[in-house]
């Protein structure tokens, strides 16, 4: 890294910024700290989070440090439409899950994790597939966020990469450890307010520092025809579509999202998710515009590393005050996601592992809290170690994404269709994962009949994605029609074409295969599930202490 190309804070300044951020956040959590925390509140705030805090927390959690860098990279690579193909689809996925979220809440109003609902519906094996994928996903997310902190600190100050990693780990753990999810939600609000205010200032500041709108207009000549096209097929096929399919899986499978779904007051779910959709889209697309502006000014990222784009632009064109604000922006985004990951993992180990499978629905609340906090400490340690040694485990994220892609249809079908069985759920997920791997790593030659078959299965996957979206908002009949028509249209266009876009092909295969297997195996059984059983099995663990203060 050529640090001389970036503005350099002194060690004292950067430490002061970090102490200000993490110290302030910790002091904020003292406002809600209780000597003996309630177990249910520790996991989901007693299901009573209001609209404002819920929307802030959803938005802050969905935005992680990589969001800015990836949106800017997309803007720099694909031009005008690039930031939209990162931010818009990510935002729409928040919107997409709320109709299903309402169904989850209706079935299991006392749930803490989606795994508990699936445990009540199918049993331990399906639940543990969800739980293990979430733990792996959250560990990777922690590692990525701590790595972002290390990279930022080492680029903008004389401090080492490892120092940045450790400070972020200790800082996040310190304010999340005692009150868990309650602390995460409260600090998410403050962090989001800061992030939004900074984004509102930085985006126009960069534009006017470059020379204003006229410079952008002149810069259009530097764009290729594809980059200048708002409807670039290159951007859609390489960035928009794969990301759209991936984030759908993340939205349904990820506990950080479902935890907020179970925490927000039931009548506030819709406005919360709509506001988070707009907020996420605006911030991420807006910061992606910095990448587009970099392209329009002909800037080259240092060492060819796209992650340098935003720090480079900020360092080159803005004053030290703005660079300090940018520093807080990135630290805020990575911390809000990291504390959500810690809360998610603790809830999974508390409820899915201990509550359901060890204590058999009769847990000791004190022991449960201890397990939750211990989980946070261990997870932070693992995240810090993986980040410090720069271990390359991002390949695991591919598998987690595939697993969540294969989970989407079985989870949703299990909540609406009483014929889905545990065997159908498990076999569908495993089949989806296996076929994903075959396509993603090209374990068979992608040519001839085999490639055509894969493209047909991927077309079914595309139909499933669009059909589920239509089903969520317009009901079963419209969902079925949209799904079937989309699959047919996609099959017409995809056969002979999609084999060149391996990531998209494999992701859609996971959806298509898991859906076909889930439906097929379910139809082979005549058993019918009574959905009323779920509410009886999914309970609050610590009902002794009332939620209200006297």
């Amino acid at each position, binding site marked *: 890294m050529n640090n001389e190309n970036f503005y350099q804070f002194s060690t004292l300044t950067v430490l002061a910024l970090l102490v200000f951020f993490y110290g302030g956040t910790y002091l904020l959590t003292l406002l*809600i700290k209780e000597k003996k925390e309630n177990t249910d*509140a520790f996991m989901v*705030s*007693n299901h*009573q*989070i*209001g*609209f*404002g*805090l819920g*929307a*802030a927390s959803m*938005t802050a959690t969905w935005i992680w440090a990589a969001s800015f860098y990836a949106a800017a990279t997309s803007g720099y690579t694909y031009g*005008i439409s690039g930031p939209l193909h990162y931010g818009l689809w990510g935002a729409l996925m928040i919107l997409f899950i709320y109709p299903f979220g309402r169904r989850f809440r209706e079935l299991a109003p006392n749930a803490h994790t989606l795994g508990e609902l699936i445990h009540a519906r199918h049993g331990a094996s399906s639940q543990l597939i969800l739980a293990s994928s979430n733990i792996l996903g959250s560990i990777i997310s922690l590692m990525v966020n701590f790595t972002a902190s290390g990279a930022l600190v080492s680029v903008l100050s004389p401090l080492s990469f490892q120092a940045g990693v450790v400070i972020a780990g200790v800082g996040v753990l310190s304010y999340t450890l005692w009150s868990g999810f*309650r602390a995460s*939600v*409260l600090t998410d*609000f403050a962090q*989001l*307010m800061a992030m*939004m*205010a900074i*984004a*509102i*200032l930085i*985006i*126009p500041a960069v*534009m006017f520092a470059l020379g*204003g*709108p*006229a410079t*952008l*207009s002149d810069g*259009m000549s530097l764009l290729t025809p594809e980059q200048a096209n708002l409807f670039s097929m290159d951007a859609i096929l390489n960035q928009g579509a794969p990301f759209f399919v991936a984030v759908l899986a993340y939205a349904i499978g990820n506990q950080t999202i479902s935890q907020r779904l179970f925490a927000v007051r039931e009548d506030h779910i819709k406005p919360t998710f709509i*506001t988070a959709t*707009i*907020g996420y*889209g*605006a*911030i991420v*697309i*807006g910061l992606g*515009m910095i990448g*587009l*502006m970099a392209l329009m000014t002909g800037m080259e990222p240092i060492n060819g590393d796209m992650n340098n784009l935003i720090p480079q632009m900020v360092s080159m064109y803005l004053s030290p005050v703005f660079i300090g604000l940018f520093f807080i922006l990135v630290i805020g985004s990575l911390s809000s996601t990291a504390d959500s990951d810690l809360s998610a993992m603790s809830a999974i180990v508390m409820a899915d592992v201990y509550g359901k499978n060890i204590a058999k629905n009769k847990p000791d609340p004190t022991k449960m809290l201890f397990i939750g906090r211990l989980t946070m400490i261990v997870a932070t340690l693992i995240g810090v170690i993986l980040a410090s040694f720069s271990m390359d485990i991002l390949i695991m994220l591919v598998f987690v994404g595939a697993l969540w892609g294969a989970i989407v249809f079985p989870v949703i079908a299990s909540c609406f269709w009483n014929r889905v069985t545990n065997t159908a759920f498990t076999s569908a997920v495993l089949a989806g994962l296996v076929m994903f791997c075959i396509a993603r790593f090209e374990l068979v030659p992608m040519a001839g009949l085999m490639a055509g078959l894969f493209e047909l299965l991927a077309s079914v996957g595309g139909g499933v994605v669009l059909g589920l979206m239509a089903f969520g908002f317009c009901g079963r009949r419209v969902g079925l029609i949209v799904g079937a028509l989309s699959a047919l249209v996609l099959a017409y266009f995809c056969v002979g074409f999609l084999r060149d876009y391996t990531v998209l092909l494999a992701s859609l295969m996971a959806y298509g295969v898991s859906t076909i297997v889930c439906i097929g195996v379910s139809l082979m059984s005549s058993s019918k599930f009574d959905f009323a059983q779920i509410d009886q099995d999914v309970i609050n663990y610590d009902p002794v202490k009332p*939620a*209200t*203060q*006297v």
Partner: protein
Amino acid sequence: MQTFILALYVLIWPLISLAVLGVIGLATLNDIRAARRDKRELV
């Protein structure tokens, strides 16, 4: 015309962010008032 559209395309996002900031801020104030009125914890 192109200059105006490009400027709008870049600046519309911070404007939307500002609006969302206002909505979330006001809603949170309402959350705080409601929690005080009902004598319960905010989170």
